[in-house]
């Protein structure tokens, strides 16, 4: 299955080009970073760091090189694929982040249906509003959405029914959304091993994260995962999302490669409020658990997880200033191999994004994460650590429409 992403991408390209009457949009992004950090070794380099870069891996870095392809296969069917590269020494430095087909028929009454199939992000984040699942607010995602990007890529289908208020004098809409997916049994492994982090380094479709890890996306039981949620948009000012996720993995299952079934479920609740045109507040809360090992066994590793953040962002003519406070914790309920891997921490992020031109953008971000995490002791790192990371980003965006 590892080649499925590139194959799907190829198919999308061929379909797009074959229909010359459809538009093909290519959106590119080059994001160069100047990074200064004293952080403990990053997870991407075998450590347990809470930020993307570390003391040995800073300086001039490729933040991200991205190409998003969008094409219209018919009047109501679109196809999207996003390929990304990160120069961070990970096993998977480049790959497919998203590849999906979306069908959105015209509504014939107040309920509009939408079907998505392929590989795409869970509809949880209220930070990632831009193409390529990037944020207009900060460089590093919140702890909640870092995890969503790292371990959860829907490999399946999502159905949405959205009640459109316009015809009833209400400026807003409410949607019920549900998804089924596979290759999800790895979801939970990273958070259990490393704890929470704040990065802008999602995993790839069928990819891995960190060095010498088993893959994140695998399947060896017959239980598809499922999620269901509600999205409410009010007057273009308020958006509220609620989602329940359960990968329904068998925690007793494992395969010959040493991959185990991580039974992970969580509830996510978030709201984004824009009381003024230039002012945004956002907050998300996630509460869940992951378990591996037979149910009822004292050897089962069972870990409770929770995290939330509050973000405020103010936009001027060419500048956007954002401040975010994150708080996060894990608690190991059972399955002790040494000290419980209970984590408690908080983070403060301050970012300034300055638009130079339509295509060029400068961004600066200061991020400090303070946390306690007992497993660090085994690596000779203080259990209570502070990771500080300062980044300066130069971003160039371009669009190409060959047809």
């Amino acid at each position: 299955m590892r080649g499925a992403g590139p194959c799907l991408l190829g198919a999308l390209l061929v379909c797009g080009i074959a229909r010359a009457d459809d538009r093909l949009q290519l959106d590119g992004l080059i994001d160069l970073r100047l990074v200064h950090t004293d952080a403990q070794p990053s997870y991407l380099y075998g450590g347990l760091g809470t930020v993307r870069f570390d003391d040995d891996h800073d300086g001039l870095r490729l933040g991200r090189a991205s190409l998003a392809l969008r094409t219209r296969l018919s009047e109501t069917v679109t196809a999207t694929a996003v390929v990304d590269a990160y120069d961070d020494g990970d096993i998977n430095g480049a790959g497919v982040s998203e590849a999906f087909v979306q069908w959105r028929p015209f509504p014939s009454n107040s309920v509009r249906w939408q079907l998505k199939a392929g590989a795409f992000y869970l509809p949880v984040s209220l930070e990632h509003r831009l193409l390529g699942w990037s944020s207009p607010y900060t460089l590093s995602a919140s702890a909640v959405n870092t995890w969503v990007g790292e371990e959860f890529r829907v490999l399946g289908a999502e159905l949405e029914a959205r009640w459109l208020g316009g015809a009833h004098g209400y400026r807003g809409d409410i949607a019920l959304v549900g998804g089924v997916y596979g290759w999800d049994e790895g979801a939970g492994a990273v958070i259990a091993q490393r704890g929470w982090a704040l990065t802008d380094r999602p995993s790839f479709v069928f990819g891995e994260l960190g060095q010498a890890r088993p893959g994140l996306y695998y399947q060896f039981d017959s239980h598809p995962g499922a999620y269901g949620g509600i999205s409410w948009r009010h007057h273009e000012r308020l958006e509220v999302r609620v989602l329940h996720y359960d990968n329904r993995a068998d925690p007793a299952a494992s395969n010959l490669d040493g991959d185990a079934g991580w039974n992970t479920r969580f509830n996510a609740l978030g709201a984004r409020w824009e009381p003024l045109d230039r002012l945004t507040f956002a907050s998300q809360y996630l509460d869940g658990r992951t378990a591996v090992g037979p149910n009822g066994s004292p050897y089962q590793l069972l870990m409770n997880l929770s995290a939330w953040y509050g973000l405020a962002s103010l936009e001027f003519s060419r500048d956007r200033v954002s401040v975010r406070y994150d708080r996060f914790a894990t608690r190991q309920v059972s399955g002790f191999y040494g000290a419980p891997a209970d984590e408690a921490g908080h983070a403060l992020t301050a970012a300034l994004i300055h638009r130079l031109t339509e295509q060029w953008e400068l961004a600066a971000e200061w991020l400090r994460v303070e946390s306690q995490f007992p497993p660090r002791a085994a690596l000779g790192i203080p259990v209570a650590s502070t990771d500080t990371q300062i980044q300066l980003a130069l971003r160039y965006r371009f669009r190409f429409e060959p047809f």
Partner: protein
Amino acid sequence: MPLTAGDGRATRTPRAAVRVAPLACAFFVLAAIGPAGAADVTVTVHAVNGKPVGDVAVVLEGGTPGPVRHRERVSARMEQHNRHFVPELLVVETGTLVEFPNNDSVSHQVYSFSPAKRFQLSLYRGTAHPPIEFATAGLVVLGCNIHDEMVGYILVTPSPYHGQTDPSGTVRIAGVPPGSYRVRIWSPRLADAPPALERRIEVTDGDTPQVGFSLAKALLAAPTPRPGRSEWDAY
């Protein structure tokens, strides 16, 4: 007939005004010239805080059966700009042709499932589609299948006596023949119940009636286009 609807919005949406089509492509509805004693009816709308309310549709319905005024086929434009319909509300007479030019860099798919007019415009930028005729009276709610936040309204009325208030909350509807009329106002901003949004008036020979509406409830928030967000919120 001076169609005053466009005057008030001229500052905000210079190209989004109702205009009389050139004679060459106009066709004429069987008509007679109105009586010499036609009046100009002035309607004003004020919010609960006393401020004038612009862009409110004003329609004079009823009237005394008899002489039908001369009408020309008119065309109108409902543009799309910064992921909003501009104007948000358009008042047109039955039979009006409406164009839907897209001024955004992103494509739109405009539709309506309102009983007064069901239609779908396949994906387009610029002015890709011929105008659409609105032949049935009623409120037509517009949407875009790509951008759910886009909502627009076309109020289709059989009455030739209609207009929209200017920023001073005023509209002057000219050439109204004597008779009994129901004056109705409507806008998506108005929260008052429908009975508060209509009045009966008698137009008599040589009269210049003035009708004032003072709303009892606060206005609903108006959508504000935010440039630079054309590609936001795909997730």
